[in-house]
């Protein structure tokens, strides 16, 4: 971790000409962008434009048809599962539905990634307590099963689990989807806080435009498998790109207009 922090480029993500198809359907068609160390990029776009697929490619859960993905300076396409695990230890991933292990308690879920570390049992428990507290979960919820807590809490537990290995890079898939506005704002604040406190590099797939405006440095806008625009929120809003301006100006308008 400290090694990662000492190298300013160590936690960067570089995507070049990334392509992915499922059968005849081209989901990603030549995506290129770079996320520099310590920056947060929000990936926006209409449903089904391959945003979640992009995150799964970044963490090696799916393989691209072509293109390059460099994480922390290392090319990850073509790596075998064991070599990928080395890279994955530097990355945290929050799934859209949290994907908590339903046979484990909240605390056991967060402790799961720590099972193969050298931490003692006491240190592990202390770390789990610290992580769950840092995402705003009270101790009374630690022993509950995932089914016994709300969707917002599940997202927080998922976030705590994603942070368990002290990742330098965080990949978040719809962190605020399905949450009430207050919970969504709290998750957004958590992401901002994480960025400030830990200097984490983050790629956040979201439909929450206000949230993206708050916690991201740069926005990347996808449409029909292409990257149509990238820049700050204000840049894109004022952009001459009609889709970008309409998407950020009024999401409903875009949906109805197509």
């Amino acid at each position, binding site marked *: 971790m400290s090694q990662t922090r000492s190298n300013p480029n160590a936690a960067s993500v570089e995507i070049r000409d990334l392509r992915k198809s499922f059968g005849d359907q081209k989901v990603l068609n030549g995506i290129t962008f770079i996320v520099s160390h310590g920056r947060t990029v929000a990936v926006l776009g209409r449903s089904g434009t391959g945003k979640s697929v992009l995150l799964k490619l970044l963490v090696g859960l799916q393989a691209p048809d072509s293109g390059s993905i460099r994480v922390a300076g290392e090319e990850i396409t073509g790596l075998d599962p*064991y070599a990928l695990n080395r890279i994955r230890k530097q990355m*945290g991933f929050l799934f859209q*539905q949290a994907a908590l292990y339903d046979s484990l308690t909240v605390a056991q879920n967060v402790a*799961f990634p720590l099972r193969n570390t050298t931490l003692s049992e006491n240190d592990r428990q202390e770390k789990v307590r610290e992580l769950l507290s840092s995402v705003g979960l009270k101790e009374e919820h630690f022993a509950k099963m995932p089914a016994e807590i709300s969707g917002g809490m599940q997202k927080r537990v998922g976030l705590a689990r994603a942070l368990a290995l002290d990742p330098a890079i965080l990949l978040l898939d719809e962190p605020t989807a399905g949450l009430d506005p207050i919970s969504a704002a709290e998750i957004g604040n958590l992401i901002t806080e994480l960025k400030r406190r830990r200097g984490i590099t983050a790629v956040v797939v979201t439909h929450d435009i206000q949230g993206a405006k708050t916690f991201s440095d740069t926005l990347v806008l996808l449409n029909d498998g292409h990257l149509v625009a990238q820049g700050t929120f204000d840049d894109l809003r004022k952009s001459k790109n009609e889709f970008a301006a309409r998407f950020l100006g009024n999401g409903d308008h875009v949906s109805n207009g197509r």
Partner: protein
Amino acid sequence: MTGSISTLAPPAARPGGGKNDLKIVVVSVFEWFGELGIFCARLFRAFTSPYEVSELIHQCDETGSKSLPLVALAGAATGVVLSLQTRDSLIHFGAKSMLPAIIAYSVIKESGPVITGLIVSGRVGAGIGAELGSMRVTEQIDAMEVSAVDPFRFLVATRVLACVLMMPLLTLCADACAIVSGWIADTLAEPISLRHFLDNGFKGARFSDFIPPTLKTLGFGFIIGIVACFQGMRTSGGTEGVGRAATSSVVLSSLFVILADVIFVRLILMIYS
């Protein structure tokens, strides 16, 4: 691919499509075995440090202890039925004294291992297929991968090894229950001491009569574990897919246990005769 073999549904009949359907089924079967081979290769690579000992113990409990009542009951029922069915025939041929030996040999050499294999295929195979299938469709297995925990090491290796280790022990329990229940059924018809029954049953028994048939259940355990894990790990299609994975795990593992039994019996006869 999954459609043809995992649901075991015949291809839909179309006018003039018979040859194509047959071709698709044949290709699917070869694909399935090819993928299973790759799955096995990845599994063998997963048997390395760090070993998931606590999960293995948990799985041995799930596979062994929790299957024990069912296996014991099935074994006991087999012993009673064997005793009842065989007794009249043996009396008819004047070979009643052979009853203990017939029960002991048939249970230990064939009925015990196969019945245990089928019971474990049903109970454990369905459980593994549904559990891993459900974990797959809810992205829990993906979550494990991105946590840098190898799901093959944590989920597959432990379950396959638990099946392999527990099958011979469960088989011995089924055998014991079958022989004791066979004796009870026999002694109710005509009193005979358990010791006398066992002496008669195992008179002249050789190593090759009893040990290899029990050891073949190691192979049954591997088949049940690997097929159920394979079907579970490749689940797709939501809750319907989970149902398909559970069903196909049971159907395919039961089928392969029976086919493997034929091969094992032939091998044992070749080696020991």
